């Protein structure tokens, strides 16, 4: 009976250790930078900043915060900034030609055209689509080409005027 009790206690100990180990997992910073706080609060002191791609060891989760091991201390990072996968490389914008290939229809860049006509859909589908369903690639191109400089963005993020 005594042996059984010891065995159960030891098994429980092993189970606890394994559980703690599995709770630890690798997390990668996905945002440009991630502040590491000393407590799960934006009011807490900042222990440091981890840049995109930094590998962190997660030791638990507290609501919206990931508890991590940071240079020997417990730290907290907003969980939305982290992922178990390495950050992917930035995708470049798809050129208009790709869309043309995809649609299988030659389309001038400046054309403002109805979706149905552009896609060569069946008559039923053309009828189904209302006049509201237009594709404005000119507008899309303007949106995609719009850019602000990094310096402007940094100034803005620091509280500067537009």
């Amino acid at each position: 009976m005594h042996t059984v009790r010891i065995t159960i206690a030891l098994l429980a100990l092993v189970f606890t250790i394994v559980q703690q180990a599995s709770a630890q997992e690798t997390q990668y910073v996905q945002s440009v930078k991630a502040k590491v706080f000393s407590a799960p609060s934006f009011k807490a002191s900042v222990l440091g900043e981890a840049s995109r791609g930094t590998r962190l060891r997660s030791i638990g989760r507290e609501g919206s915060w990931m508890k991590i091991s940071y240079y020997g201390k417990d730290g907290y990072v907003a969980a939305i900034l982290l992922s178990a996968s390495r950050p992917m490389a930035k995708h470049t914008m798809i050129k208009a030609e790709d869309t043309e290939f995809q649609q299988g229809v030659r389309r001038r860049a400046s054309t403002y055209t109805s979706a149905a006509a552009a896609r060569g859909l069946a008559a039923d589908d053309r009828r189904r689509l209302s006049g509201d369903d237009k594709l404005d690639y000119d507008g899309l191109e303007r949106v995609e080409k719009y850019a602000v400089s990094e310096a402007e963005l940094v100034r803005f993020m620091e509280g500067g005027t537009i």
Partner: protein
Amino acid sequence: MRMLSLLALLVACCLPVTAYTADDQAWRQRASAAPPEMTSDDVTEEIRFGREVAARLIGRYGLYNNDQLTKYVNLVGLSLAVNSNRPELTYHFAVLNTSEINAYAAPGGYIFVTKGAIDKMKDESELAGVIAHEMGHINGKHVVRELDIKATEGSAVSGLARLIGGGTESARLAFSKAVDKAMDTLFTTGYKREDEIQADKETVMLCAVAGYDPAGLIRYFERISAAKGKSTEVLDKTHPAYDARILLLKETKTAAAIESAVLKTYKDRFSDAMKSVQ
């Protein structure tokens, strides 16, 4: 003897774990990234799809052509985007020329806020809240998952299928129908309730991380919930009730220990930007 064997077995079980937790250097070497949820081709497919949805949104309303407001919306959006958990995407922001009160996200990083919505806002944290919510839909891949948009064979909108089919009529029709469905989601059926909840929850943290008071979205909801009629028709039809959303935002904010006092609303900067708007 049996007891000793058992102990030896237990010690053997513990050894790798002990090494894992005790030796940080060894842990770093052993740590490996989880396989990415999406491949590079999947992301390309998402952006291609999102472009079609974005082109239709612009086609429906047109862009609100005001350089200063466009720049301002882009600056606010990019301030949030640097904290996005999808660094592979380039986010684009624009104002749609309609008095309807709403905002839209197209997969791949396209975010639109209507002029009508901006007219109802009182400070920058409200605009940030609306943009962050839409970013939550993109980052959560809500449309991508719902419509199974990926580059692998078997997907409803498959790049491989198009290549095999050589861009056949049926493949183009499948693609168009998927875009139709995405438009239905935006204008008629709405996202799944759990997706809306997730986007609202992420809004709170995303705003706070970017330095914005997450209560901005609460104030905006309280204001537009009073607006009835055609201007909020689509918004009311496609989103959960404001009361429930406001409660969720407040609970999330409290749970994350976020105090508005330490975060900004940028009311003056918002007022300056609005001077360019008639």
